[in-house]
């Protein structure tokens, strides 16, 4: 944390937790008997309880979206660029909720928790979650917090899929949907990359079929590889080239297999850091949730028909160099929303930073997203700076 907090920071935040005893039926047929959800909030819930904004996180995300947990924390939450007083999601107007999804490894019930039925860790036996399951659990958290209807549900990437699911599963509970750098379903190429990541993890001898915690090991090599390949898909060719080019770590080629190029060093570092901070079973589960999401499937592939229940206004945003969830995927969603006659706006942002652009500050991105959120606030008559 910087010595003095910037004026547009939400400041120090403390995660909160809610326990749920009512069993949650899941898409896979199993039921989660009881569970905890960990979350953070920023801003104040107004008297009408209608200024709440839900943030849905992406593959490796969590509840810590903005501010700092302590003065020692080096970096703020993952979406701090867009959440805070006067920022795109203005905490002077909105009450922002950000949670860790079920199956996660940052506090909400997941593979690292104890299964009350067996008395041992859930591990690989934790049920495979779907986007629909997550949204159902998020709706229960909203019930608990006394929020009948969200002013907006917002998310990028896998988070954007949850936003879409909200619009379809709980149309009466969401006034506005912001779907950023997302897709209405994964392509074969997307699934292929996820499968490489899963194979990397599952083939690590330290994985032990997911029981690594009981064996006292961590499948670090697998997680590291999974993250390395994932990370490549988050960046654009340009952003990697601009950052590393063909730069070498030393002055000359050493004709060996140690790290030579800077990009190798970077990827290994990213992989190493991730492999000690993230849970392998969670990673597997999250990639499955991505693969399975396909609201059009129940309508013979007709996405416009699948979108029929939605009543909210949509904002869809894509980034030009995003090749993980390319602008064409957002355009598909927009076309289907238009066909279904839903209120939707679409901005295709020029960016050099690939899929990761949704996390970063950018003048046009902020103007578009912020402009939409301003209108959301105005429609609700919310006071703001």
């Amino acid at each position: 944390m910087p010595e003095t907090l910037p004026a547009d920071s939400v400041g120090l935040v403390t995660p909160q937790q809610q326990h749920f005893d009512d069993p949650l039926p899941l898409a896979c047929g199993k039921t989660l008997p009881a569970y905890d959800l960990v979350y953070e909030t920023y801003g104040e819930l107004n008297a009408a309880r209608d200024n709440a904004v839900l943030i849905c996180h992406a593959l490796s995300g969590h509840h810590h979206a903005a501010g700092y947990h302590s003065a020692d924390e080096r970096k703020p939450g993952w979406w701090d660029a867009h959440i805070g007083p006067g920022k795109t999601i203005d905490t002077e107007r909105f009450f922002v909720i950000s949670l860790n999804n079920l199956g996660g490894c940052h506090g909400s019930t997941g593979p690292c928790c104890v299964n009350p039925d067996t008395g041992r860790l859930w591990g690989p036996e934790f049920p495979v979650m779907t986007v629909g399951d997550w949204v159902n659990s998020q709706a229960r958290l909203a019930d608990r917090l006394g929020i009948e209807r969200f002013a907006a549900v917002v998310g990028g990437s896998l988070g954007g899929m949850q936003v879409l699911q909200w619009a379809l599963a709980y149309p009466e509970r969401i006034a506005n949907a912001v779907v950023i750098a997302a897709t209405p379903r994964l392509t074969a190429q997307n699934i292929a990359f996820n499968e490489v990541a899963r194979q990397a993890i599952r083939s690590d001898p330290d994985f032990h079929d997911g029981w690594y915690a009981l064996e006292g090991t961590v499948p670090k090599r697998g997680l590291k590889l999974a993250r390395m390949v994932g990370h490549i898909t988050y960046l654009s060719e340009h952003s990697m080239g601009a950052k590393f080019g063909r730069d070498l770590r030393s002055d000359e080629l050493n004709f060996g297999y140690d790290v030579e190029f800077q990009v190798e060093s970077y990827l290994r570092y990213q992989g190493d850091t991730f492999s000690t901070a993230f849970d392998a079973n969670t990673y597997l589960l999250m990639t499955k949730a991505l693969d399975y999401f396909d609201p059009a499937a129940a309508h013979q592939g007709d996405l416009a028909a699948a979108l029929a229940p939605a009543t909210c206004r949509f904002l869809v945003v894509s980034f030009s160099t995003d090749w993980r969830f390319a602008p064409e995927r957002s355009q598909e969603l927009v076309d289907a929303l238009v066909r279904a006659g839903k209120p939707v706006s679409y901005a295709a942002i020029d960016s050099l930073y690939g899929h990761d652009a949704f996390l970063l500050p950018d003048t046009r991105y902020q103007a578009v997203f912020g402009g939409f959120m301003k209108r959301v606030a105005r429609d609700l008559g919310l006071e703001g700076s």
Partner: protein
Amino acid sequence: MRADLTLIHDWVHDGARVLDLACGDGTLLDALARDKDVFGYGLEIDPDGITACLERGVNVIEQDLDQGLANFDDDAYDLVIMTQALQALRRPDLMLDEMLRIGREAIITFPNFAYWRHRLYLGFKGFMPVSRTLPHAWYDTPNIHLSTFNDFERLCLDKQLVITDRAVGNGAHQSHWSSRLWPNLFGEIAIFRVGRGHARQQS
């Protein structure tokens, strides 16, 4: 509101489904939604226009008209509007076909190149006209397909389209919608309201 937009506003019926191509800052769609319960979308590529639409609550979709309108279904709209953009498109004639494929009716406005001041500019000065409605130099103008009131009328006739209304206005876009007698000479802005030809309507 600009006078050509005011006129269009009057032509749109209550509850119409409208597509506004090159909708700018969304002024027209916003007014139509408020006054006439119109539902619609605007297409725009200008970032400032898009932001203005979003702040207004106008549905705006970032889409380049030169890439076509294949993503819009046949007969999906009552009315397709295009103000001051036709002349900047690569193929205005194909766009006109597309507008009347998607909508039953189209309203189009464009600068009339045969306006008397433009004629004087070219005829006497010998330079490409620069005016209130055509403010660019020949080398940097986005207007690659300038036409006249008469040209457009002829295109509609060639395509066997039905012209339901036509009007002209001046470049300040204020009043003066009365040059009915010599529109090709005195009209600075041409405004056409066209419908499908009989062949198309029967199909």
